[in-house]
């Protein structure tokens, strides 16, 4: 029983990361209808950025989170303005595919050149502190990360629902022509949206460093899972991404617990394909 609860808690925690990644991907997809294939690499950049800030300035990894968010926001905004917006004009999906895939390769190989392939961690005084919550034991960094993840997710919901820019982001994703009719500057919303998505990936990266190793391809599995989350939760749907992320995290740990940890990737992908096929069949049936 307690191992089961433990697995649930771990699943929820990883699921929170998948949710955050999926929501970032979905905000970008909703507004520009492009799949951001370098989303996972942005998480990795967030990790190295945290590592850099911690080792250079002696900051605590969790204190770096807001800094990383701001820096990543600007990185995303610049990439959108200089690279993605000009390619959107060409209306060529392949251009954008190569652009974001290429950016991802550039970032992971850049990290390899700059930091080498070794695995790095950020040691903290509390990384080995464990908290007992009834039958479950949690490393303190995981607990803090989970708390921050939830706060960030709620803040994102509230931002999109109530703020002026959040409403404009939703307006552009639902109807770009209508957005122009009411005078929304879509180019500006593109910049803010890509910045926001990139910042969310960066936050996920920063929060991971408390208990996860840092290496140049650390983002790949998160990037891929973000795609699964987006497809399962519904393209463009923020609540859908949130719940799909949690579901994916729980699924992984349950497979690891009841079957074998080495099967968890396999089963995740099989589930993904099954959901895709079933959904397609439902769509065909309706027609």
């Amino acid at each position, binding site marked *: 029983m307690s191992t089961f609860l433990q697995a649930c808690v771990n699943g929820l925690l990883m699921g929170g990361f998948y949710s955050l990644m999926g929501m970032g991907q979905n905000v970008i997809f909703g507004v520009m209808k492009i799949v951001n294939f370098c989303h996972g690499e942005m998480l990795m950049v967030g990790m190295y950025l945290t590592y850099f800030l911690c080792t250079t300035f002696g900051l605590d990894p969790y204190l770096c989170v807001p800094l990383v968010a701001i820096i990543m926001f600007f990185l995303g905004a610049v990439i959108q303005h200089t690279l993605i917006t000009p390619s959107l004009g060409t209306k060529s999906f392949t251009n954008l595919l190569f652009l974001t895939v290429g950016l991802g390769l550039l970032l992971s190989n850049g990290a390899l050149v700059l930091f080498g392939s070794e695995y790095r961690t950020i040691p903290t005084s509390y990384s080995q502190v464990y908290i007992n919550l009834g039958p479950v034991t949690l490393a303190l960094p995981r607990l803090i990360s989970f708390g921050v993840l939830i706060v960030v997710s709620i803040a994102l919901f509230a931002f999109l629902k109530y703020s002026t820019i959040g*409403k*404009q982001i*939703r*307006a552009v994703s*639902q*109807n770009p*022509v*209508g957005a*122009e*009719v*009411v*005078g*929304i*500057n879509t180019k500006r919303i593109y910049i803010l949206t890509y910045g926001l998505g990139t910042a969310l990936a960066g936050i996920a990266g920063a929060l991971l460093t408390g208990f996860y190793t840092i290496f140049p391809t650390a983002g790949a599995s998160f990037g891929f899972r973000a795609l699964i989350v987006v497809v399962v939760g519904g393209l463009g749907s923020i609540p859908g991404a949130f719940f799909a992320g949690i579901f994916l995290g729980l699924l992984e740990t349950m497979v690891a617990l009841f079957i074998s940890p080495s099967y968890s990737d396999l089963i995740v992908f099989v589930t993904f394909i099954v959901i895709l096929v079933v959904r397609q069949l439902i769509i065909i049936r309706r027609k």
Partner: protein
Amino acid sequence: MLKVEGLRAGYGAVNILWDVAFHVDDGEIVAILGSNGAGKTTMVRTITGMIRASAGSVNFNGEELARHNSRYILDKGIVQVPEGRQLFTEMTVLENLEMGAFNKQRKEHFAENLRMVYQWFPKLEERAKQAAGTLSGGEQQMVAVARALIGMPKLLILDEPSLGLAPNIVDDILNVASTLVRQNGISVLLVEQDITKALACANRGYVIENGHIALDGTSAELAANDHVKKAYLGI
């Protein structure tokens, strides 16, 4: 109020509008009539800054607007109810109306303007919290008109408000437009294929064919014109 001269515009290399010229005076309802593909919507998009004119001028109250972006033109008071309504279907009716308040001044007047549009369209107050996409076609058109009115137009452009709607709803909407012209002194540019309805409501009209202005005159003159009768009214 609005004076358009020598307007040329199109999509990419394809030119659609050829030297379009017309004017709308203060407190007038002017109809733009034409069949499918004549270039009416292209003209609306050009005047509202959604596509750039390649030549010509759009003079609004003495200011040249042809090279400005859509936000600037909205600020000046040209607001459209676009073809196909272009609502934010997953947002509530109220959120859609909020989106119509595009600048600081419109936001400041939002509460009073909201009360006004609810008086025009009481249905919308009942449906305020409902997603706009779940409304009937007529109700959605009301949201589109209300959203434009929240933008406090000096010139209101209606692009085919009759499209797919029952006649009585179209009458309601045209009635609101006429009353606003009388009470608030705004002007209306009414783009329509339904010539009978449009001429009944408008003071003057222009007929656009293949991107050219082919005819113009008062509503009575156009209704009596042989070409209009044959080509558009089937008489």
